[in-house]
C-alpha cells in the first residue's frame, strides 16, 4: 500500500511539474515521473525483504527476484543521461520562448541578453 501511494504521489507531482512552463520544472517533473515508474517496476517483483539472488548460495524459494532490480538499474541510467541532456537544453534557453517563467520571474519578455545559442547561429 505504501508503495502504491508513493507511486501515485510521485506521478501526480511529476505530471503537475511537466505541465508547467519553464524547462527546469519540466526536467524536475521528469525526474519525479521516472522515480514513480522505477517504484512501479520494483513493485512488479516481490517487495518483501528476501535473500540476495546469487547463484548456488540462495534458495530460489527465498531469493529476491533479480529481474525488476536489473530493469530499474537500466532505467535509472537512461533517465539520468536524458536528464543531464535536458538540463543542457534548459541552460541554452534563449530567445525562442520569451515567456519562459522558469528562472527569472521579473524579466520582461524580449529583453533577455544575447545568449550562446544565438551567437552560434
Amino acid at each position, binding site marked *: 500500500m505504501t508503495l502504491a501511494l508513493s507511486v501515485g504521489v510521485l506521478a501526480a507531482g511529476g505530471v503537475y511539474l*511537466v505541465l508547467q512552463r519553464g*524547462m527546469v520544472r*519540466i526536467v524536475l517533473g*521528469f525526474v519525479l*515521473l*521516472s522515480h*514513480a*515508474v522505477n517504484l*512501479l*517496476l520494483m*513493485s*512488479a*517483483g516481490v517487495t518483501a525483504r528476501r535473500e540476495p539472488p546469487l547463484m548456488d548460495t540462495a534458495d530460489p524459494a527465498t531469493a529476491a527476484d533479480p*529481474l*525488476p532490480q536489473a*530493469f530499474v538499474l*537500466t*532505467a535509472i541510467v*537512461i*533517465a539520468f*543521461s*536524458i536528464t543531464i*541532456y*535536458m538540463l543542457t*537544453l*534548459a541552460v*541554452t*534557453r*534563449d530567445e*525562442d*520562448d520569451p515567456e519562459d517563467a522558469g528562472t527569472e520571474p521579473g524579466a520582461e519578455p524580449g529583453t533577455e541578453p544575447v545568449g550562446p*545559442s544565438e551567437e552560434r*547561429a
Partner: protein
Amino acid sequence: MNTPLLPLVVAVPLLLGALLVSLEHSRRLRTALLLGPSAAAVAAGGWLIAETRDGTVLVHNVGLWPDGIAIPFVADAFSSLMVTATAVLTLVCSAFAVSTGTARARYFPALVLFLSAGVYGALLTADLFNLFVFIEVMLLPSYGMLAMTGGLNRLGAGRLYVAVNLLTSTVFLAGVALIYGVAGTVNMGELAGAAHESPLVAIAAGVCLLALSVKAAVVPVHGWLTRTYPATSPAVTALFSGLHTKVAIYAIYRMYAVLFDGDQRYLWIGLVVFSATMVVGVIGAVGQDTTRSILVFHMISQIGYILIGVALFTPLGLMAGIFYLVHNMVAKTSLFLSTGAIEHAYGHSRLDRLGGLARREPLLAVVFIGAALSLAGLPPFSGFVAKLTLALAIVEEGQWAVLVAAIAVSLITLMSMLKIWGTVFWGPKPDDTDEAAGTGTGIATDEPLGTPAARTAPDSGAAAAGRSAGTAPVSVAEATEAGAEPRDDEGTRPRVRPGLLAPALVLTVLTLALGLGAEAMLDLSTQAAQNLLDTSSYVEAVIGR
C-alpha cells in the same frame, strides 16, 4: 534455427560508433565509417531475407543462456524486411548528409551509427524491456542530431522532442512494469496470446501500445511531430521520417500479433483512430506553406494507412500494411531528399518563393514527381500496388467508411502533391528580389527571424544588379551565402549538384522498381503477414518449445 551472427547486426554499428567518437581528424575515414556499416547492413539484411523468406525464424540467445531466460534476438520475414529497408534508408540518407555537408559535424557519423544500431535492435529483439532499451538507444542520438543541425528554432524543437519522447518512453516502461507484474515475464515468446486470455495483461499491454502510438504520431497525439521535424536539417528529417515512426509501427504490429494474438475485440478502436489519422494528417497539410511541412503532415496521414493493416488483421490486410510500410519508407524519404536538395541549393523551401524549377532542374523535377505520384498511389509506382491491396483488404472486411476515407485521402494527397508541383516546378519564377532574398537568408535563418533583415539587404543588391544591366551581378553574388552557387545571369543553370540529387534518384527508382516488380515484394509481405498471423514458429523459436 540458431544463428550466432544475429546480434552482430546490432553490435557492429554500436562498436564502430564508439570507435568513431574517438577519431578526431580524418574526415575521410569518418565518412567511410558512416557509409560502410550501412552498406554492410544492407548486405546483412539481404542475407536475413534470403534465410527467412520460406518462413524460417532465426534466433540467437545472447550469452547462450537457456531458452526462456536468455535475451533473444529473433529475425522472421517481417523483421528481416524492416532491417533491409532501414539499412537502405540509412545508407541513402547518410550519402545525402555527406553531400549537403551535414555529416561534416564531428559527431554526426557516430550518432547515425548509434541510431541505426538502436533501430536494428528494436526490430530484432523479442523482449519487451529490451525493446524499451533499444528505442532509447535509437532516441538518444536523435536528440543530439535534432538540436545539432537545422534552423534557428531547433533548440525549441529539440526541447519539445525530448520532452515528448521521454514522457512516452516512461509510459512504455510503466506498461512493461505492469506486464511483468501481472504476467511475470517480459519475453514475447512466453507472453504469446497472454493479452488475449487475460484482461489484466491486455490493459498492461494497452499502456505499451498507447506509448507506441504517440511515438508513431497517431492522431490525436501527433502534434509533436509536425512541430519538430521541420526544424532540423533536411538530411535528419529524411532519416527520422524513414526510421523513427516506422519502428513504433513495427512494434505495434508485432505486439498486437504476438501478445494480443490479433484479438478481434479491440480492432474497431484501431479502425476509428487510424482512419482519423489518415484524414487529419492530409487536411493539416493543406494549410502549410513550405514543402517540408506539407510532407511532414502527409507522413501522419500515411501512418494511418499503414496501421489500417493491423487494424484489419486479415492475411490480406497485414500483407497490404507491410507492403505499404516498406513502400512508404522509400517514397516518403525520396520526397524529403528531393525537396531537401532544393532547400539546400536555394536556401529555403517556401512555396511562395520558389518557381519554375521544372525548367531549371529537369531531373530533380522527374525524381520529385515520381515519388509524389507514388505517394498519391498512381501506377506504375509502388504506391498504386500498396493502396490497391489495402483497398481490397478493406473491401474484404466490408469496412466501407474506411474505404471512403482512404480513397478521399488519396485524392487530397494527390492534390497536395500537385500544389507543390504547380508552384515549385511549374509555377512562374518569382521575381529577382524574392529569389535573392531567399538565397541570402540561407538554411540557417528560418521563417520570421531572418525575414526582415533579408528583405532589406538583397533588395538593394538586386537594385544594384538592375542598374548594372546585364553585367555580372556582383552584389547579388556576394549576398549568396550558405554554400549555394552564385546565381548566373539567366538563372537557368541547375543549382542542385548531382551528388545532392543521386540519393533521391535512387529511392525514386526503387519505388518504381517496387511498383513494376511488385510480385516479389508481395510474396515477401505475404510471408511476413503469415508469420504475424500464426505466431507459433516465432514463439517456438524464442522459447524453444
